[in-house]
């Protein structure tokens, strides 16, 4: 149980931070896209009897770089590029799964999350990757703010905008892989996006937006895990439902307060 809580705390912290940047850049779909690409990596890893999370990480990173290059080349409308990767990744995954003769328990745990059975090895990976993401976001928070708020002015200031964009996409890939173990591939984007959107409803400044997003996310993870433990339901679904409840509450609170 402690392993699960630690894993939950880590993902609960990094997912909303990345999520805020994604939502503000209108790239919410990238999380979903990369999680489907990661699924192909997982399927490949299971098929080859190697560590599935490694497969997921490789696939997600390749996908991230590919998406970013397509986006900056300007040859496709933003969403179309994502749709191609999402369906392509999923198609590869389905084919690989059929090669392995269908679903098994392992695959199921990647699809829907298995926070309660977090292995020690998984935990190391989660802690390591989580610290990488947390470190990068903290170190580069002012640069990420600048490119998110006004990319052009950031460029004029001499910031390496293209590198930062790529880095952000890579961080999304890493976060997705970490989240996969807890809420599962199918609900990963929800964990990144919903607390961020909740915080945006209540935002008074960028800093408070990040703080509120992390707070909502951690509460959702904690409540979701406790509820799933006692009611014996899927943790991933419980966590996301908790996050949605907070979103609903924030929306109602916003409606009652006069606009400031």
């Amino acid at each position, binding site marked *: 149980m402690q392993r699960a809580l630690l894993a939950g705390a880590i993902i609960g912290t990094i997912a909303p931070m990345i999520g805020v940047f994604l939502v503000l850049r209108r790239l919410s779909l990238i999380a979903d896209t990369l999680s489907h690409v990661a699924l192909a990596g997982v399927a490949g890893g299971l098929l080859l009897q190697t560590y599935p999370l490694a497969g997921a990480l490789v696939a997600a990173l390749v996908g991230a770089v590919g998406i970013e290059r397509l986006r900056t080349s300007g040859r496709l409308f933003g969403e179309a590029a994502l749709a191609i990767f999402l369906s392509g990744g999923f198609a590869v995954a389905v084919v690989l799964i059929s090669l392995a003769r269908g679903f098994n328990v392992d695959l199921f745990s990647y699809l829907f999350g298995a926070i309660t059975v977090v292995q020690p090895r998984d935990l190391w990976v989660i802690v390591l990757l989580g610290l990488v993401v947390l470190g990068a976001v903290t170190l580069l928070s*002012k640069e990420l703010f*600048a490119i998110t*708020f006004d990319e052009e*002015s950031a460029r*004029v200031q001499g910031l390496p905008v293209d590198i930062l964009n790529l880095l952000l996409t890579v961080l999304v890939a890493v976060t997705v892989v970490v989240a996969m173990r807890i809420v599962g591939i199918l609900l990963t984007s929800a964990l990144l996006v919903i607390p961020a959107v909740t915080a945006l409803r209540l935002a*008074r*400044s960028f800093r*408070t937006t990040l703080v509120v997003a992390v707070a909502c996310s951690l509460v959702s993870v904690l409540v979701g895990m406790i509820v799933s433990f006692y009611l014996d339901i899927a943790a991933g679904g419980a966590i996301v439902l908790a996050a949605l409840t907070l979103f609903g509450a924030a929306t109602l609170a916003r409606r009652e307060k006069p606009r400031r």
Partner: protein
Amino acid sequence: MTTPVTTYGRPLVEVTDVSFSYGDERVLDHVTLQIQSGDFLGIIGPNGSGKTTLLRIILGLLRPDSGRVRLFGTDLAEFREWSRVGYVPQKAVAFESLFPASVFEVVLSGRCGRAGVGRRYGADDRAMSVRALETVGMIQYRDRLIGRLSAGQQQRVFIARALASRPELLLLDEPTVGVDLDAQEQFYSLLCRLNRDMGTTMVLVSHDIAVIAQEVTQLACLNRRLVFHGSPDEAMRSGAVEHMYRAESRLVAHRH
């Protein structure tokens, strides 16, 4: 103070024989122009005349098809001292009004390039941001969400952001679009103050001929080519402005 020391006597901006086309459409045609320290230059011209394009080329956002640009005596390709240059973009492209950022956070981000990668903002950065906000008269709004201000107030915040790094050169792209007349007056007097009292070199791209001709010290008329570059008085005398606008200037005269 912002008096440039190393480039005394040298033009701040040297545009030499710059041409640029968007696809087949030639937008700038062998434009050569120098901007001296302390100038308050207004760049005017009809729609599609390349004013914004020229500004973007000077800022390094676009690469010219031919010709070159020097900033502070250095070729643009090698230029790194971007904290000496302030940029106030056109409002429409700047940002989305629901963005969760306070006024202070926006102005502080003007120090990002200067502060160095991986370092947090320091007391210096905050102090400069406060000063910039005081200069534009918006300090009392520092904790307000940027989206909750009027267009004129937002524009002043963007100027503060550009001023936060204490630039010697300030470039503004159509800054009074969507701003009401009172705010425009305040805005121009602010720019004049910055130019006269602080010595900041100003380059202003604008549609607003009548107002701009009153406020600037130098006027450049651009219509794919540089049609005129000199003082506003000379411009009026030579009829360069009317010639360039033709039908449009008749419309302006009629309204007055």
